[in-house]
């Protein structure tokens, strides 16, 4: 007779995290749904910030383009996949976990989740000053 535990619990001895930033999640325990989102414009220009003017998300199509859809002809044809999980052991044991950085809608989760939908859109602009005519 095989034992089946409905859920598994996670046991961790030690967790060490240095940095958590930009819509990231660190969670100990179970969760239903998480939808972290990030829009970032990283501007690095050789100009004074007071003279550079504003930057707008609306100027760049990366922030408004639709999310890609999963194309799965098998599922559309009705060939569904029925997943069944059998947990023979009620826990996951982990010793020490060392993480340096968690960033940009990433998540660190010790526990169970039902649904996670993370979205990060990052646009970099790097501009260096250079004259069109060479000045000697």
């Amino acid at each position, binding site marked *: 007779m095989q034992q089946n535990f409905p859920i598994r619990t996670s046991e961790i001895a030690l967790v060490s995290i240095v940095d958590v930033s930009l819509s*990231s999640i660190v969670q100990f325990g*179970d969760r239903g749904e998480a939808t972290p989102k990030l829009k970032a414009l990283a501007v690095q220009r*050789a*100009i004074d*910030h*007071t003279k*550079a*003017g*504003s*930057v*707008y*998300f*609306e100027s760049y199509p*990366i922030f408004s*383009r639709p999310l890609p859809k999963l194309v799965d002809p098998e599922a559309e044809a009705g060939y569904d*996949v*029925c*997943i*069944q*999980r*059998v*947990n*023979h*052991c009620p826990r*996951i*044991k*982990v*010793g020490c*976990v*060392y*993480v*340096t*950085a*968690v*960033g*940009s*809608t*990433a*998540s*660190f*989760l*010790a*526990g169970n*989740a*039902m*649904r*996670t*939908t*993370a*979205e*990060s*859109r*990052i646009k*970099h*602009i*790097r*501009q*260096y*000053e250079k*004259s069109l005519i060479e000045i000697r």
Partner: protein
Amino acid sequence: MLNFTVHNCGLTVGSIEILGVSAASMFQIGDSDYVTLYSMFDTPPESVIAGPIAPLPTPEDEEQAAGEAPMAG
């Protein structure tokens, strides 16, 4: 209909070292039903501009656009 059965036997891990979990990534010790991770990162080599500095483009409806707070001075 395809039946897929997963048998989770005992799982024990000694230690884990991670430098970074970044841009819509996920590190989980546990079970998940649905995971969807989107990441758009726009930094091609061409994104480096070397030339005379001109103001960055403004969108058509600038008044309604969600820009950064105006700088003092």
